[in-house]
Structure formats: C-alpha cells, structure tokens
C-alpha cells in the first residue's frame, strides 16, 4: 500500500490518473480507516485549493478539506450559515471533528451526515473536478448513488469546494439532531431548515431531514405548504404533520421504532424551522435598528 501526499490539485489529479482506479482520495480518513484499505491512498489535506473558508459578494466558499472543527468555529459560517456551524459542532467527538472534513462528510455518503444535512438545507453546491480536467457543479443532495455510496468517484474525481449563498436579510437557518447520547452517536433523526421571512410570512423555505433515504431529503410538500404562511405555532404543527407524512422510515432494532422516528422527524423539523424563522426575524430587526 502506498500513502501519497500531493501538494497541489494538479499533482493529486495526476496521481489518480496514473493510479487507473486503484488510488483513492482521503482527507480526514475517519471512516475509511475502519474499512479495508485500497491499493494507494491520496491524502488531500495539504492542497491549498481544498482549504480555507472565504466570503465574496454574498457567496461563502468552503474548501472540501476544511474540518468540522474549523467550520464550527468559523466567524464566516457562524454569521452566514448557522445551520452548518451547528451541524459541524455535533459530529462524533472532538477527535473526529478535528480530523473529519466537510468534503469527506459528503463523499462518504452516510445517510445521516450532520454537515451534509445542513449543507443541503443551505442549498450548497459542490464543485468537482475529474482526471480529465472537467469541472462540474452539483447540489449536495444530488451526490448520492445509494446507501453509503457517493456519485463522486474518489478514484477519479475530487470534490474541491462547497459554495453556499450567505444568509441575507430576513434569512435564517438552523440545525437539530436527536441521538441516543450526547457524543459519538449517529442521529436517530437530524434536520435542518433555511428560511426567508418577510413581514412575518414565509417567503422561501428549505427543509431537510435524514436519515430517511440514502441522501439528505428535502421535504418538498412541507416547504410548499409553508410559503406565504405566518410564522406561528399553528404553522409549526402543520409542518410537523406534513413532514411526518411525506417520508417513510423503517424500524431498526439498534435505533428505534418507525413510529417514534416519524414522530421525531416532525418534532425536529418543527424545531429547526422555528429557530431558523426566529433568526430570520432577528436579522430583520438587527437591520432595522
């Protein structure tokens, strides 16, 4: 087995090209080190192109090798993508957050990845380059092939960065999670919401929940229902009901019954929505004053 440590994106792509499918990219390696290791590993954590968090003309760009700890503490993300900061702060344990990266959280394709759920709610797009030099941009939630299998081929493609629209006036986001203990536990349910609220009415909404499908799942019916509704308790209860009615979940011996998980989906989506809406309204007040 070889362990390669390229210092530029070009070099990394070159190694993948030469590896003809037998080399695989890694970053934090918090998951792959638990599995059977491939022929050669290409460590991306030194690539300048994959590091750093910056904000320019209302867009936040996050390098794919940014760790969960870095994202959770980033002033840019705390201000412009609060759901992401909250999701990143709840992953695993401090050790895992210090090593695990946002790009890895997506390409590892775990169905309830906290960062991925927040990114999907924030409408994040992933920029991916391949060994032929082609670049594509995809919505985060469109990168899942099936359970724990990504559409990003880590033997021939590199997820370079994530792009999110920074939270503007009247906008807010939030992340919630429910697990069997306070650290080192996959969530029974996690959810994120990003909303725009004008004059007390919902203008735009993205609600995402997991794990119900291989990918973070948009609750489109609940989102549509929300548009034009006032932010209040009745709306929240209606959304809770709608959310629970548009997903299907299974009972799991290790986690919980389907009935309880469905109940949690409603509660968590409702809570994420409520917090996100509060934040959106606070942002408005903040701007007014």
């Amino acid at each position, binding site marked *: 087995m070889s362990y390669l440590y390229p210092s530029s994106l070009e070099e990394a792509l070159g190694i993948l090209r030469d590896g003809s499918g037998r080399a695989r990219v890694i970053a934090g390696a918090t998951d792959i080190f638990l599995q059977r290791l491939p022929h050669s590993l290409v460590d991306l954590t030194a690539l300048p192109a994959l590091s750093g968090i910056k904000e320019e003309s209302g867009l936040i760009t996050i390098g794919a090798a940014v760790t969960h700890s870095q994202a959770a503490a980033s002033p840019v993300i705390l201000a412009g993508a609060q759901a992401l900061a909250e999701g990143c702060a709840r992953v695993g344990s401090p050790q895992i957050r210090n090593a695990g990266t946002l790009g890895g959280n997506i390409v590892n394709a775990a169905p309830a990845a906290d960062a991925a759920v927040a990114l999907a709610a924030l409408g994040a797009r992933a920029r991916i380059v391949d060994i032929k030099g082609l670049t594509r941009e995809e919505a985060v939630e469109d990168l899942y092939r099936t359970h724990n299998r990504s559409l990003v081929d880590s033997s021939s493609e590199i997820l370079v960065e994530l792009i999110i629209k920074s939270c503007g006036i009247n906008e807010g986001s939030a992340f919630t999670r429910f697990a*069997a203990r*306070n*650290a080192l536990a996959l969530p029974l349910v996690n959810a994120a919401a990003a909303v725009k609220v004008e004059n007390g009415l919902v203008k735009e909404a993205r609600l995402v929940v997991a794990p119900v499908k291989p990918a973070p799942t948009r609750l489109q019916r609940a989102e549509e229902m929300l548009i034009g509704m006032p932010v209040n308790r009745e709306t929240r209860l209606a959304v809770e009901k709608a959310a629970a009615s548009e997903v299907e979940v299974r009972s799991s011996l290790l986690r919980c*019954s389907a009935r*309880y998980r469905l109940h949690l989906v409603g*509660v968590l989506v409702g809570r994420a929505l409520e917090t996100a809406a509060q934040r959106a309204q606070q942002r408005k007040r903040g701007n007014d004053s």
Partner: protein
Amino acid sequence: MIRSITAPDPKQAPASGCFPGIDYDQNPEVWAKAAGRAVYGTDLKMPGMLYGKILRSPCPHARIKKIDTAAAEAMPGVRAVLTGEGLGCKPFGIVVDDELPLAVDRVRYIGDEVACVAAVDLQTAERAVQSIRVEYEELPAVFSPAEALEENAPQLHRDFPGNVAWQRNISRGDSEAAFREADHVVENTFTVPAVHPTYLEPISCVAESDRCDGLVLHTALQSPDSVRAIVAKVLELPLSRVRVIGPVMGGGFGGRVYGNLKLYILSSLLAMKTGWPVKMQLTREEEFTVGRPMIAAELKMKMALRSDGTILAREAEIITDNGAYSAQAPWVSNTISERNDSVYRIPAVKTGVRLVYTNKVPTGQYRAYGNQAANFATESLIDMAAKKLGIDPLDLRLKNCIREGDVSVHGLQINRCALDECLKAAAKKIGWDRKKAGRGYGLSAAIHANGSLIFNKKFRGAAAQARLELDGRVTVFTGEQDYGQGAHAAFARIAAKALGLNPDLITVQSRDTMHSPYSLGALAMRQTTIGGKAVQLAAENLKEKIVQLAVSLSGEPATMENGVVRGSSGMVFDLAAIAYDYHSQTSGLSLLGEGKYVPEKSDYDDSGYGNISVTYSFAAHAAEVEIDRDTGALTVHRIVAAHDSGRIVNQVSARGQVYGGITQGLGMSCYEGYLFETGRVANASLADYKIPTALDIPEIEEIFIENEDPAGPYGAKGLGEIVMVPVLGAIANAVADAAGEWVTDLPITAEKIYQAMAGWECQ
C-alpha cells in the same frame, strides 16, 4: 509533544482522616497508567510467542457433523490445530459443569468454540481458522426463556431437563396471610437486559508451558486463585504446577473474576502442545459475543402494605436468561432473588427464581452481581406504593428501612448501619423539600455484602504477610487484587497505620499466585473489609516481632511508636538494623508478620437463611432529572450518593469509586443492554452498545457517613459494588416523577419514556 506527568503538589492535596499519607499520592500505579508506561496483558510479548485464534460457531444450535482441519494444518506458519474430539476434557464450570473447552458434537450459541489454532503471527492464525471447514446440521433453537420453558422446547443440555439450569424457592414468614390482610397491594413486571462490564482492555492471556515451571498464565484476573484451580482441574495438572501472573488490569468490574476461562484453557492447551508461549486475545466484538455479560432478568414482583405504609410482605417470580452455559449466573440469580429484601424490614417473603438455558451468549457477572437489577424493580415498586398510599417516598423508606441491630428477613445480621442517615442526607442535598418545577426526583436505597461467609463456608477470610526488608522498608503480600480500584494503596495505608510508618515505605505485592497468599480475590466487595483486615493483622504481627527482636537485642523493654523502635533506656533501633540482624541470626530468613482474618462461621442453613457476610455497606441515592416532553429525551442533572461504608481509607479513591459506579449505573439505567436478532448479538461494538460518554454524566455529589465498623480495618468497609446498586432505582423513580409514568423495561430510553407518556402500546 509528550508532557511528563507528575503527582499534584502534596501540600495542596487532601488526606483522609485518621490515616497516614496524602490521598493523591497513594497509588504509584496510577502515574504509570496516566503516562502510558503500565504494561497490560495486551502489551505482552515473549520470545518465540505464537498467536492463537478460535473458530467459533456461526449457528445458534447445531450438531457438528464433520470438521476438516487439513488445510489449516498444512498452512505454513501454523504450529497447532485443536478440535474438541481429541481433547478428552471433562465438562467444567464455575457453579454447574456444563462446558467443554471446545465443542465436541454440538454447538449451542453463535460464538461457541469449535476449534483453535496457534501460528507464528496473528494473520496466519486468522487465515488458518478461516480455512477450517465444519459441516453443521442445524437444530431448532430457543432465544428466550419463555420459548425455552415451553413443553416441547429443544433441550440444550441432557443433564438439565426443561432447560432449567438452576432454581430456588424461598419462603420466609407467612406471605399469603400478609397479602390477605394487606390494605394495599402493588405489583408490576420489570425487565432488565444482559449488560457487559465493558472494561477498557479486552481479555488476553499468554500461556507458557515447560518442564521447569509448569504452566504459567500471564493474565490479569480479579480472582487468580479460583481460575488457577479450574484450569488445573480441567487440564488435569497438579495445582502447584499452574501459576498465574497478572499484568496490569485494564478494568474488571466483576467481569474479570473468572475472566474468559475458555481463552485460558485453550491458550494453555496450545502452549502445552507446541512448547511455545501462546497469546490469545478477544477482539472487542468477541468481548460482546462470547464474553460473559450479566444475565437478563424478568422480575414479576408484588408488595403488600398497610395503609400507614408498613411493608408486610413481598413476593416475586424471577426468570433469568442464562444463555448457553452457566458460568456464575446461578449465584447472580440468587443475589437478584434475595439481596434487596434486606434493605427494609419485611416480615414475609416468597420468591421463586429460575435460571433458564437459551441459545445465546453465556452469561457471567458484573459489578453488584444483580443486586442493581433487583434494586430497579423493588425501588420502583416502593415508589408505586408511595404514590398509591399518598405517602412521601422518603417517609415510606424511612418507616421501613433496616436499622442497626436488626436481623433481616433472610437472617442477615445488621450490626452497623446508617441507612436512615444516608436516606435523609441524600434527600436533603438533592433538595427533596424544595423541588424545582419541571424536574423529577427519585430516591433509592441499597445494601451490599462485604465478602461472603458462604461462598466457601470453610474459607471465609483472608491472609496477608508483611515482610521487613533489609533496608527497613516493608513489603505486604496479599492475594487480593488491585484492578484500578485502589485496593493496594488502601492496604499500604492500613499497614502504614498499624506500623506507624509513612505509606511510601510500604510496597504491596499480589500479582503472582506463586508468591501471594491464597485468596478468593476481588469479588463480593471483600477487598478493604476482609483483605484489609488481614493486612492490618499482618502488620500488627510484624510490629510485635520487631519489638520482640529489639528486646532480645538490647535486653531491655522496648516499644514501637510512630514507626520508631525505642528501648526503655531511650536507645533507638533502626528498622534496617533489626532486619539485618534477624537475617544474619537465621542465615537468610526475613522477619515476617503474618495475619489471618478468620471470620466466625455463619449460621447459614440449608434453606439459605442466615448471615452471609461479616458486615454490610449501605447507600441511598437521589436523582434529579428533566424530560423533554416532545421527544421523551432524558437529562439526568444530578445524582447525590450518600454512603455508609464505614471509615473512608482514601477520600480521593472513594470519590473515584462513586463516580465510576454512578456512571455504570447510569449506563445500565438509560443506555446499555444486549440486543439480539435470532440469537446473534446485534450490537456487538462500542458504536452500537452505547455506554455513557463524558457529556452524558450528571453532576455527582457524594456524602460519606463515616459510621465506623469494627468488622473491617480501622472501621472501614467496602465501597465498590454498592455504588452501582441504588442508581437504577433513583433514576427510574425520578423519571416516573417527571413523566408521570413508569418505564419498567431497562434501559430507560427516550423512546420508552415518550411511549409511556403518549400512551402508545409497547412495541
């Protein structure tokens, strides 16, 4: 960068009451562990060492038709392959002889040992094991006691018809009359899953066999002498040709009293066959699937009371799930069935307990030996009674709790007991009279024995030796084991007090059965009380001998005060000089103090009535919790732990015991439990078998009621297992107080709390 780790500043450190030395400084091994220098069993490597691996059954119940080991034997690097057929071993066990080192014709659970291999490295051993071909004929299996007790159920063991491994019926007083005359009866059924002690270091063993030394097992055990005796018997070796040497132990919590006997026997057989040391180590998955968790139990219990809250009687039907083989499960079942009855003054008791074989992982023991399972049931029932009678749960407990001078319903003699004070202190500190809105509060009380007079009716005590070294230092030899709980530090302190020396001058040795006095080991909370008393007696005996020698050397009366030996003329004798003089006079003997603590025989009779221990420790815990009503999520905010463990030998170690015991109690209350899928352990990893993390631990406040007990050294007694016992009842009752509904099935998860509050039918 590696920072060097040093002890805190002694000037800042606390000291415990009447004992010499500073609390923080008492356990030199702690510093080796913190710095990564301690050598655990998993670290051991020996010249020429081979690695052993076990092939395990993939079937819950099957007949072995054929085993083909040819490919394994032909594999380069493989030194030995064993199957059950050729071993000729007799069935063995701890209580019941129902196991063989390797299955001969039948396997009874997924994980049953079928064959084993020794090879030059672990990878080769693993490959060799995988190359063994076994033909199985699957047999119908039973996965629950209910299935196993059905009339036409498959039988697991020929000698145990009806799949009942062990049973007992206890009847004291006239419980039928009490239930007839009672004003109120409360009853419920409680279930407790199997739980693993989850020690940090998986069990390992290096076995060496040669003509000079016989069989030497390098493995960390709580009771090395018990394991040594079983291994010698199974392998038909003279007892003196089997020796156990313990490396540092990475946790035991009851699980390492007997550890994993199969591992020790199989590594020994491979070492004897090859002539080379053989190392075997359980993986974490094996710890869960073939280690020995504590039995699952179902307790159907009812209690009769008068309107004024007086408890009149209790009846219980208990079924415990043995798994495929017995280990210590009969004893654990026995503790579940009766120990809790002695927390209160209960005039009449009627209990039936049955231990039932199933095609699942065999069971063993865990800290508190099932007493905590019974605590969950009985303490919940007491709060149910309090609610029904409209009596405050604290008052109901104070009205009925056992007191000094009582003889309990099972004949336990309660000579020293501050349980009522523990209850009052715990309630006061948690704020029983000024409860916060939105929080739930619960209380629970417990008793636990300090060593056993009946485990071996002839061998009830402990022995120790204290040797004066040529440099004037003292070495204490004991068979009692330190596995992180601080037993040896406590012994150093006890010997230091007896001799008037600084504990730094005392070294405690116990890890080699060749040199240590025989001992029952670290079980039944006997280390401080029984082992410590023997150390005190040995040190006192050494002191007498030192003074006698000073007298004969000087020809004048002498005394030893504060570690200084002084003749009546004022002449001072150096301890090293005394040691050297004796050594010269005797051409090499050492001055040796011997101590034997032989507790009086018990009046324990054939019905199981009588005193079972020299004394008992008591505790009351109070919990404060909060429940998220939308999800059922539980936050345990605080636990107050009030303990009567007599005089505390070391405040720092004692607090450590309390924090650890409460963490494990919380784990069993709210997080842990085996999950099975047709006999297979479904959560056989630390990711899926959830123990609490640092973020889940409540604020813990300990209160020590130092009610001196003459049964133990300088008034001290045990504070190990008991800490875990009351946690379960306290949390269960606090949850019920907050939720308005009881969860009677452990662990108390958010889902179960929500189900109870929402009135959902149980899954």
